[in-house]
């Protein structure tokens, strides 16, 4: 039963992340909304898989997939947003602050 609750929470986080991926106006906003929510949601789903399978081979594989997913997704998102800035995509006109501009030069 705890596994079902954890998977439900994870799918709910994924829904919020995908709403952010559709609705937000800018590529930076989309990335920061989608990556955090979807990473946390999939970690929750894998934790539910670990609780469902217990300490068997599949459960341990699900448990070691959690830090792998956590670190690889955040590092990939950071590299992607840095590449996006160097590619020259403009922010939306409602954004108020750009601290990275002074670091680039």
């Amino acid at each position, binding site marked *: *039963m705890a*596994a*079902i609750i954890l*998977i*439900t929470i*994870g*799918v709910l986080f*994924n*829904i919020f*992340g*995908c709403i952010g*991926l*559709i609705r937000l106006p800018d*590529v930076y906003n*989309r*990335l920061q909304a*989608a*990556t955090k929510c*979807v*990473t946390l*949601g*999939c970690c929750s*789903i*894998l934790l*539910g*898989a670990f609780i*469902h*399978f217990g300490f*068997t*081979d*599949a459960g341990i*594989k*699900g448990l*070691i*997939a959690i830090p*792998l*997913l956590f670190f*690889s*997704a955040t*590092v*990939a*998102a950071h*590299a*992607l947003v*840095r*590449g*996006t800035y*160097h*590619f020259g*995509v403009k922010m939306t006109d409602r954004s108020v602050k750009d601290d990275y501009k002074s670091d680039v030069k």
Partner: protein
Amino acid sequence: MNIWLEILLYTQIALSGVCLYRIIRGPTIPDRMVAVDIFGILVVGVCAIIAIQTGKKYIIDIGIAWVILSFIGTLTLAKYLSGKKLNE
């Protein structure tokens, strides 16, 4: 319980379809790359739910391999975006 898990599985697959919408419709190239990254993370959740529902334990291995391949692919795409060579 089993029906509810199936509903969650179809919801997760529909969210992958949402990412496909952003890949097709995205105004710039980085939008499409962000959507590819999110798609690769969502597939891991689909693999975990399928492994729980059908009881086939080897599907979790497919999820782990998908994490690593998606990470390498996204890093390559980011390197291509920032305009540098791959050995810099």
